[in-house]
């Protein structure tokens, strides 16, 4: 299980691993990390909202929020307070319990994902040896909350939105898991901490295709543009949120960005070497990488038109799925051929394979069509 | 340049086909009987040489004694136009609908029905378009009281 650990561990050795029960005792560990995770998620979600609005503003040849506090930094705070103080409306014909529970069911699984994300060597709430499996399993539960919201609101727009969301998550789970399998095969472990330790060379270089597939699939799963069919403003009003106001809407808003945060954390951990990096402290490296990944998401959001639901499905089954399978097979062969660790030359080979496969598939597979005779 | 065919150009042809259809023909338009409007329109649309395949617009004017409907026809093939008119009684205004010839007439006829109160016989979905169901009166009539 130490294929990549043997060459030189000097970078890692400089940073001593944090004890598994830091700062002493099971309960202290539990309490401290829960607080860290909640603070991390809440603060970074606000940061994300700020970054998204400012970056989007600048990309759209304008300024973005800059009046509230220095550089508009307090904008998300103002938003949060305002949304919380707003009236909470429950439609008369809504399924009240489901309507009430939905945001909570959607939010908590997202928070739970962070339990296995290492912020530093060993700095993790629970270093599960099935970390990736846990992430994949837990993240799907959010969908139940989303569907509850769609059903409970008793609104046709929300129902359409919920159906779209469920359909996309069910389809995209497969290419996402398959592309994660590539990483697991190379690292030889499912624990996220072990995977970070295994990345002397960031995994993105050995798994360029896997990274792309995972990133696209994850964008679709969390319904960010260009797969934001869930909240397609121009089609189904506000989608899922149509009937939510006040605190419950705030929770859904939080879910949206917390999911983006979760995805960027997972991408950072699995593909970009997690907290590892020279000079700066590990937690700062982690933050920088997470924010950089999120910036790419914002960039995509401001650039791309939205795709249609049948095209979304076609992309998952005809483009991502076969490529993910091929990627997994190639990775497995590479690991079998080089059991002592992958040589760096494979990076070039993998990049070439990625380029060839993507070019080939984009010739074979075209989005389009979609009319049904009625 | 679109050639504007006058009533004098077209009236003889129509008379040949429908002897008592033309009421009046002047340098601007040809006026036909409202009962024969559909047949004349069909003739104008389908006859080679005339081929008015494009219904530019329909308008209605209230002249106190009668309503006048104005059909502005254009032929894209020959690039000429014709103003076809018909008159209908003010007490029981009804003319045949042209929707089955030119579907472009659909909303315009509904609009005239709504605002002028002229019924188009044979229109597939004749109901108010601009105002709401239950509105009293037809605003574009000259005797409309608010």
């Amino acid at each position, binding site marked *: 299980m130490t294929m990549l650990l043997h060459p030189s561990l000097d970078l890692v050795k400089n940073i001593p691993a944090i004890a598994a029960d830091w700062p002493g005792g099971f309960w202290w560990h539990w309490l401290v990390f829960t607080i860290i995770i909640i603070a991390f998620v809440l603060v970074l979600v606000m940061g994300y909202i700020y970054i998204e609005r400012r970056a989007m503003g600048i990309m759209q040849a304008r300024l973005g929020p800059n009046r509230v506090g220095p550089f508009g930094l307090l904008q998300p705070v103002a938003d949060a307070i305002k949304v919380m103080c707003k009236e909470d409306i429950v439609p008369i014909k809504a399924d009240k319990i489901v309507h009430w529970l939905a945001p909570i069911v959607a939010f908590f699984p997202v928070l739970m994902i962070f339990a296995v994300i290492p912020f530093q060597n060993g700095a993790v709430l629970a270093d599960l040896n099935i970390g990736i499996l846990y992430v994949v399993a837990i993240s799907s539960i959010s969908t139940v909350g989303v569907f509850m919201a769609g059903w409970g609101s008793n609104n046709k727009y929300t129902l359409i939105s919920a159906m779209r969301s469920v359909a996309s998550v069910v389809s995209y789970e497969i290419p996402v898991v398959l592309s994660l399998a590539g990483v697991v095969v190379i690292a030889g472990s499912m624990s996220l901490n072990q995977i970070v330790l295994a990345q002397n060379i960031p995994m993105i270089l050995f798994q360029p295709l896997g990274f792309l597939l995972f990133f696209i699939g994850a964008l679709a799963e969390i319904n960010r543009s260009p797969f934001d069919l869930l909240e397609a403003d121009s089609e189904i009003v506000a989608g899922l949120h149509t009937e939510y106001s006040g605190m419950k809407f705030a929770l859904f808003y939080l879910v949206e960005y917390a999911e983006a945060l979760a995805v960027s954390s997972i991408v950072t951990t699995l593909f970009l070497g997690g907290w590892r990096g020279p000079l700066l402290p590990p937690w700062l490296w982690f933050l920088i990488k997470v924010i950089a990944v999120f910036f790419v998401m914002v960039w995509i959001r401001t650039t791309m038109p939205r795709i249609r639901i049948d095209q979304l499905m076609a992309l998952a089954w005809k483009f991502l799925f076969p490529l993910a399978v091929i990627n997994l097979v190639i990775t497995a062969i590479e690991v079998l051929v080089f059991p002592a660790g992958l040589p760096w030359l494979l990076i070039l080979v993998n990049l070439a394979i990625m380029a060839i496969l993507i070019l080939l598939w984009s010739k074979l597979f075209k989005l389009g069509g979609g009319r*049904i005779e009625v | 340049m679109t050639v504007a065919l006058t009533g004098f150009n077209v009236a003889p042809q129509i008379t040949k086909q429908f002897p008592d259809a033309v009421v009046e023909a002047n340098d601007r338009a040809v006026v036909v009987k409202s009962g024969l409007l559909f047949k004349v329109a069909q003739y104008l649309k389908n006859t080679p040489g005339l081929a008015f395949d494009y219904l530019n617009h329909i308008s209605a004017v209230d002249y106190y004694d009668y309503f006048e409907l104005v059909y502005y026809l254009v032929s894209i093939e020959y690039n000429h136009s014709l103003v076809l008119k018909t008159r209908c009684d003010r007490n029981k205004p009804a003319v045949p609908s042209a929707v089955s010839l030119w579907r472009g007439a659909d909303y315009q006829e509904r609009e005239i029905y709504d605002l002028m109160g002229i019924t188009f016989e044979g229109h597939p979905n004749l109901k108010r378009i601009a105002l709401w169901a239950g509105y009293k009166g037809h605003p574009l009539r000259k005797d409309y009281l608010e």
Partner: protein
Amino acid sequence: MTLKTEPYVINIGPQHPSTHGVFRMRTTLDGEVVVDLEPIFGYLHRGIEKLAEERTYTGFIPLTDRLDYLSSMSNNLAYVLAVEKLARVLVPERAEYIRVIMAELQRVASHLIAVGSFLNDAGAFMTPIVYMIREREKILDLFEMVSGQRLTYNYMRVGGVSQDLPEEFLPALDNFLEQMPLYIDEYDQLLAENEILLARSKGVGVLNKETAVNVSAGGPVLRASGVKWDIRKADPYSIYDRFEFDIPTGTNGDCYDRYWVRVQEMRQSLRIIEQAKAQITSGPVRSEVPHLIRPPVGEAYGHIEAPKGELGFYLVSDNSIAPYRCHIRAPSLLNLTALRDMIKGWKVADLILIFGSIDICMGEIDR
């Protein structure tokens, strides 16, 4: 395979983010597929045709601004052409050139919004429309220079235009003409080969040639279906016979063609402005017209190629100071006739896109 599903009715509009105003569609859906659709109008019916009957001929010009509020200059032009035809007024040479420049600038401005909101409907989050509004602001600056208004210009008069061009107008126009083609190239680069846009719009919402003519469609919608029909060429009004320009036509009549035709028309408009600027003469900008115009008894139909299609004013005069009847041929209303055929069988997302590609303006539809 027999799939038994229950169609349901959903209301899209009148307050919906992408109905371009207060348009409403009572849509029957089967899952995501549109089975049937009934457009409902009238949420902006302001009775402009009735109001025309109580205003003087000149006093109606401000109301025409508010018809298709994205192309007020074109509306002004169509109306004054109809009155001039009715009252047999001649227009000075310089005024004709100014009118052409304004009408073409307006076409560019209107198409910018059309293309921008089409892409917004496709789901490109705000970015294209913000960029296109940035360019539109430059045109609005030019309009503001001549008329003092940003949206409702009230600039043209019967027998000319309300005032001459200010000194700084032509240099500013030069500047604009230099920049604008570069911006259009930029849009082409960004959008014309965008895979998602192509997948969403190619082959979507096809309107064939025969149907397009039969439903009296006009403007870019008609031309995208392959009919070479442009009033500027077919029945040149004003001084359009003096300029050289092409009529871009599409081949498939799908959403992408409508988008493409609009982009190409912007280029052609710039070409016309270029020529008009070179030919413009000095002289008066308004012929002597009495304050209260009393046209002889009769009727006239003045029409122009507005950005959205053929805009016409049918005026009836009874020799009084107000029109006896004023009927407006609104291009958007007629373009919408084919909406149902185009949308049937497509998905909700396409519905919005096809609707956006028609480019309507509610002020003109409901009047």
